[in-house]
C-alpha cells in the first residue's frame, strides 16, 4: 500500500470568510422564500381566476398585527446597524444596548406573529391557502430565530472581546443576515397581508 507523505498545507487566511459565507446563506434563504412566495402568488391567481375568493369563508387576516411586526422589524434594522457602528467605534456599552434592543424586538415579533395566527383562525388542513400561509410565515419565524441566535452569538463574542474597531466581521455578518430577514418579511407583508 502506498502512503503519501503530505507536505503541510500553507496557512491560508481568507479575507472575510464569515461575511461572504453569510451573504451566500442570506441569498439562499431569500431565494427559498422567493420560490415559496412565487408558488403562493400562482395558487392565489389560479383561485381568483375561477371567480372564487382567495381566503376561505370566515377567515380574516387582520392588518394591524402585521403592520406592528413590520414596524418593529424596521426599527430593529436601525438597532442592529447601531450595534455594528458602535463596535466599529469601540463603543462597547452602546453596542450591547443595541444588541439587546435588537433581540428584544425579534422576540416581540415572534410573540406578535403567534398572536396573529390565533386571530386568523385559518385551518392548515382546510386547503392550499392554509398550507402556504403557515409554511411561509412559520418559515420566516424560523429565519428570525436563526438570525436572533446569530446576533446573540456575535454579542457574546463581542462581550468576550473578540470584536473591535479593527475586526468586526462577525457583527457585520449578523447584521447582513438580519437585514435579509427583514427584507423577506417586507415581501411577506406586501404579498400575504396587504394584497390579500
Amino acid at each position, binding site marked *: 500500500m502506498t502512503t503519501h507523505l503530505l507536505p503541510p498545507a500553507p496557512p491560508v487566511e481568507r*479575507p472575510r470568510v464569515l461575511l461572504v459565507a453569510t451573504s451566500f446563506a442570506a441569498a439562499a434563504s431569500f431565494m427559498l422564500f422567493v420560490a415559496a412566495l412565487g408558488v403562493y402568488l400562482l395558487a392565489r391567481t389560479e383561485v381568483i381566476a375561477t371567480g372564487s375568493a382567495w381566503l376561505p369563508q370566515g377567515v380574516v387576516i387582520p392588518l394591524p398585527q402585521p403592520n406592528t411586526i413590520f414596524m418593529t422589524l424596521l426599527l430593529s434594522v436601525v438597532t442592529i446597524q447601531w450595534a455594528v457602528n458602535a463596535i466599529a467605534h469601540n463603543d462597547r456599552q452602546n453596542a450591547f444596548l443595541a444588541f439587546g434592543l435588537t433581540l428584544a424586538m425579534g422576540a416581540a415579533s415572534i410573540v406578535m406573529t403567534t398572536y396573529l395566527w390565533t386571530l386568523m383562525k385559518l385551518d392548515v388542513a382546510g386547503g392550499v391557502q392554509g398550507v402556504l400561509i403557515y409554511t411561509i410565515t412559520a418559515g420566516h419565524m424560523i429565519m428570525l430565530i436563526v438570525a436572533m441566535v446569530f446576533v446573540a452569538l456575535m454579542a457574546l463574542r463581542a462581550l468576550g472581546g473578540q470584536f473591535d474597531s479593527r475586526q468586526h466581521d462577525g457583527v457585520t455578518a449578523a447584521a447582513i443576515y438580519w437585514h435579509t430577514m427583514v427584507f423577506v418579511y417586507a415581501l411577506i407583508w406586501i404579498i400575504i397581508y396587504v394584497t390579500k
Partner: protein
Amino acid sequence: MLTTRMFTPAFKFFAGLCVFAVVAGVAVGITSGEGALVDRVLGPISLGWKGGVGNHFAYTFFVGLAAASGFLAGILIAFRDADPAAQAQVVHTESAPVVPAPVGVNYLPALTALATVFFLIGLATGTRWMTISAIAVAVCIAFVWTLRTWAEHATGDAGANIGLYHRFIDPLRVPVISIVTVAIIAIGLSRVLLTVSKTASVWIFGLVALLFFLVCVLLALKPQVSKVLTTVLVILAAIAIIAAGIAAALAGEREIEHHSSEGAAAVASSAPSIGVGA
C-alpha cells in the same frame, strides 16, 4: 507580476446572472401575460404595478434571482474576491502565491452537460424517471467535483493532491460504479430478452455472457492494455446495452404464456411492462 483587476471573477458571474435573470423575468412576463402588448410590457417592467406579470411563479423566481445575484455581486466586488492584491495582503507577502494548475483530464464537465441534456429531455417528454435520474447524477457530480477541486489545491504537490483525491473517492467510486453497471446490464438486457423470441433470448443471453467473459479474460491476460482502451470498451458496451434496451422497450414485449397454479389452460397475455416511457 499579478495585477489587480477592476472586476473580479465572482462579481462577473453574479452580475451576469443578475442581468440574465432580469431579462428572463421580463421575457417570461411578456410572453406568458395576457392583454394588450403595452400592458404585457409595462407590467413586468414595473414589477406588476402597471399591469400583469404573466406566470407569477416564473416572474417572481427570476426577479428574486436577480435581487439575490445582484446582492452577491455587490458583496463580492466590495470584498475583492480572488483579487491578487487582497490575497497578498492577507498572507503578508508582496504578491499573491502562485497556485499550481490542475493536472489530468476532467470528465465531470462533459458528464454535467449529459445530465443537463437528460434532465431537459425528461422534462420535455414528461419522463419522470429520466428527470429524477438526471438530478441524482447532477448531485453526485457536484459532490465529486467539489472534492476534486478541494484536493487539487490541498497541497503544493500535484502528485500528493492526486493521491489525496483517490484516497477519498475510490472507496466511494468502486461500489457506486459497480451498482450502476449491474443496473444498466440488468435493465437493458432484460428488455431485450423480453422482446425477442424465447429461443433467441437464450442465445443472446449466452452470447453476451460469453463475450463479457472473453473480454474480461483478455483484459486480465494483457494488463498492459491502456486505460483509454479499457474506458472506450466499457463506454461502447454501455452505449450498446442502453441502445438495445431502449429499442427493445419501444418494440414492446413478446406474448408470454402465464400458467395458472391449478394446472388449468395456459392464458396468453402480455407481461406487465416496466415503465419506460412516462
